[in-house]
């Protein structure tokens, strides 16, 4: 049986891509951010995951408003990054595992998740940057399964629904008849708002409370409507939904291996956690 070894949750702002492209890892602005990933890279290298389920949100690369899915799951042999319009170099393609994708999809649809399945799928910075933060040489030693959650257009799935999706992903992976070691990678957040007069909004108190809840009270954030989450964390802070789904996939108990919180990266409070299952 496949085993979920743990989850990593991290911010994914495009500015990270620009910093990587320019080699700014040791720059004073960026150093506190990039340094936090060094122990995580070490843990990942030692834990040797075979497959990464990447729970992320598309920012208008693969999906438009003509067909905007709430939950989309990739089922392709390969996923490519592409031009997003602001000049960040694209990353090497990612190897998929379509057979495992279909096992995941079969289980989730049986569990009454109304997925959109994608046999072709471009993956944007929310997918590629966290991967590059875990594997800086960008020679991905893993296969990937993209799971995309709508944060573009209201109504977003509720926090409760995202939690349930994560739980169902956990159940589905546990049924895979393979020996894969599976990492869940949830990307987005933490508090930030790009648009409106409230641009630049950051809520440190809420973010820290949320990060604590990931370990000690993981369903805490499901009490909020997505509108309340926007109020507390900003229009893009609602990306914590990906953290919540990731946490739900890990089961009842986790062991916190690593945490970082840093204000600001671009307009964002950047967060990073590594949670081992069964802690």
């Amino acid at each position: 049986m496949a085993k979920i070894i743990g989850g990593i949750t991290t911010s994914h702002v495009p500015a990270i891509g620009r910093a990587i492209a320019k080699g700014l890892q040791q720059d004073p602005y960026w150093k506190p951010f990039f340094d936090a990933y060094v122990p995580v890279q070490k843990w990942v290298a030692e834990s040797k995951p075979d497959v990464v389920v990447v729970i992320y949100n598309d920012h208008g690369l693969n999906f438009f408003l003509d067909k905007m899915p709430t939950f989309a799951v990739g089922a392709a042999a390969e996923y490519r990054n592409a031009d997003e319009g602001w000049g960040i170099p694209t990353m090497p393609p990612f190897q998929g595992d379509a057979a495992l994708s279909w096992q995941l999809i079969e289980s989730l649809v049986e569990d009454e998740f109304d997925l959109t399945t994608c046999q072709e799928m471009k993956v944007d910075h929310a997918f590629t940057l966290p991967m590059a933060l875990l594997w800086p040489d960008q020679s991905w030693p893993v296969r990937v399964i993209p799971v995309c959650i709508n944060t573009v257009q209201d109504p977003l799935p509720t926090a409760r629904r995202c939690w349930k999706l994560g739980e169902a992903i956990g159940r589905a992976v546990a049924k895979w008849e393979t020996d894969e070691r599976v990492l869940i990678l949830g990307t987005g957040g933490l508090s930030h708002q790009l648009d409106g007069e409230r641009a630049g909004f950051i809520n440190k108190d809420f973010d820290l409370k949320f990060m604590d809840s990931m370990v000690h009270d993981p369903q805490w954030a499901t009490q909020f409507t997505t509108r309340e989450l926007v109020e507390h964390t900003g229009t893009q802070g609602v990306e914590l939904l990906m953290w919540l789904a990731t946490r739900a996939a890990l089961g009842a108990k986790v062991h916190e291996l690593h945490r970082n919180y840093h204000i600001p990266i671009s307009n964002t409070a950047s967060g990073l956690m590594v949670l081992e299952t069964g802690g």
Partner: protein
Amino acid sequence: MSAHKKPIPGTVIFDGEQAMKGYALNKMCFSFNDEDNRKAFVADEEAYCAKYGLNERQREAIRSRNVLQLIAAGGNAYYLAKFAGILGLDMQDIGAQQTGLTREQFQAKLLAARG
């Protein structure tokens, strides 16, 4: 829709109402994922906006590079970011413009959130 929900100051939720209002504008911005389209826009902005059927309010917001106006005209932050890319603006520029601050003031505001 949003009528029943408590507004969040300084924040427009991109819901169905906004999505309907901004469809042409966002579709144009979505097209900016392709370099050829960005070049076509730069070569002739008015023709490009006309091709996507932007209304006058949207065209004026594009002309004036005014993010708050673009949002009011139905623009979505994620698609508008691709327009900002054409203009060479980053998120601090955008944030500064929307909050009426200089770029330096906006960056200071972000830093202040460290508490």
